[in-house]
């Protein structure tokens, strides 16, 4: 059994389902734009303080959009009773988990396609490749952790409450390093390279750890 074929099949299935139902991306895109709008009206934004405030608003919007996107990955499977059918195949649980995480990451990246230009528009901060790289690197690690906890809480009734409680503390390293990288990309003092190095280290660490844990979480 080729695990790549299984992971790609799972990711493609989730993305095709989202494309046809359009349940998640339009709602998430609206949510991030509204979050930026509230941030824009809630703070006295000017050209001096925008690079300090905008990264905070960016990560708040991203974290809450991520919780919704990752929370749905396994909840929908449980509601449809389709997770067991998938786990009854010879495909490795790690491949199934990877496919779900890839699809959820793509959905969050689609929101970021709306979020990042909108951030520049509302806050007048620079839109650069460095900013995009920082956000994408954080998305990888956040997706792996978010999907793991989404799989754990999917069978629990209070999953909407439990998912943020479990996930947010472990997302803090990504928010700290990502926040530092985004601030540097927006022209504030701080080492961009050091922050990106940290994000890559966290990505490797959490992708490996969650892949190892996924086997035990999904395999029963």
């Amino acid at each position, binding site marked *: *059994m080729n695990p790549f074929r*299984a992971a*790609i099949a*799972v990711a493609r*299935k989730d993305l*095709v389902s989202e494309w046809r139902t359009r349940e998640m991306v339009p709602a998430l895109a609206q949510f991030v734009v509204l979050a930026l709008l509230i941030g824009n009206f809630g703070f006295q934004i000017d050209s001096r303080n925008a690079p300090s405030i905008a990264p905070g608003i960016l990560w708040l919007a991203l974290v809450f959009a991520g919780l919704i996107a990752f929370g749905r990955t396994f909840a929908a499977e449980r509601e449809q*009773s389709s997770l067991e*059918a998938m786990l009854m195949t010879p495909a490795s649980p790690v491949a199934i988990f990877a496919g779900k995480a890839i699809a959820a990451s793509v959905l969050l990246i689609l929101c970021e396609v709306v979020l990042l230009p909108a951030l520049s528009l509302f806050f007048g901060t620079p839109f650069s490749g460095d900013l995009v790289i920082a956000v994408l690197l954080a998305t990888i690690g956040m997706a792996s952790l978010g999907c793991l906890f989404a799989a754990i809480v999917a069978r629990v009734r209070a999953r909407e409450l439990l998912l943020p409680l479990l996930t947010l503390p472990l997302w803090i390293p990504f928010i700290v390093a990502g926040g530092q990288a985004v601030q540097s990309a927006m022209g504030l003092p701080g080492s961009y390279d050091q922050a990106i190095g940290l994000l890559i280290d966290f990505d490797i660490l959490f992708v490996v750890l969650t892949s190892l844990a996924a086997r035990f979480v999904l395999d029963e």
Partner: protein
Amino acid sequence: MSMVVANGLTHRFGPELALDSVDLVLDTGEHMAVLGDNGAGKTTLLRVLATALRPTSGRLEIAGLDAFRERRRLRHYIGYVAHNPGLYPALSAAENLEFFCDLQDASRSRVAEVLETLGLTSVAHRRGNLLSRGMQQRLAIARAILHEPRLLIFDEPDASLDAEAAEVLGLVMKGRTAVIATHDHALANRLCPRTLVLRHGRSLGTATHLRVVR
């Protein structure tokens, strides 16, 4: 040769005893119905036999392999239809099966063949949420036979099926070992020469052709 050998299968959900020391031997090609009231342990037994649930205690061998050590390997041999069809509503019937071909490592060319066997060719491109409950159940059966399993495990497959479906079930079970949980005694007698009766998780024994006395 025995396809299924189970000794002392016991399963507890917390303090609740769902399955109480069930012994079972099923020969290759044999068809067996599992009967019992609601809560008798039929679904638990079937999930254990399908290796979807690890029993609290007991031993299970399928095709000569330890069912829980060789679980992943055995998934190639087992086709399982749960009580709930568990399909993807946004995918068409054919796409649902193609997806499972990828996970089962089966050729996608099986899809057309299996749809025809189950009488679903005309709805191959209809989305899962637009299929009737009976058609969804047929599609779940189609999914279970995609990889040509040796052992079929059906949990109340007749729940939403019409009279013609019994023929279909007979067709897909032909040449395979099969275990069916059902409340329909007539169907059980028609499809399965052997019957296991469960009550409160305990086996009341097996019989060939159950005589139902009301």
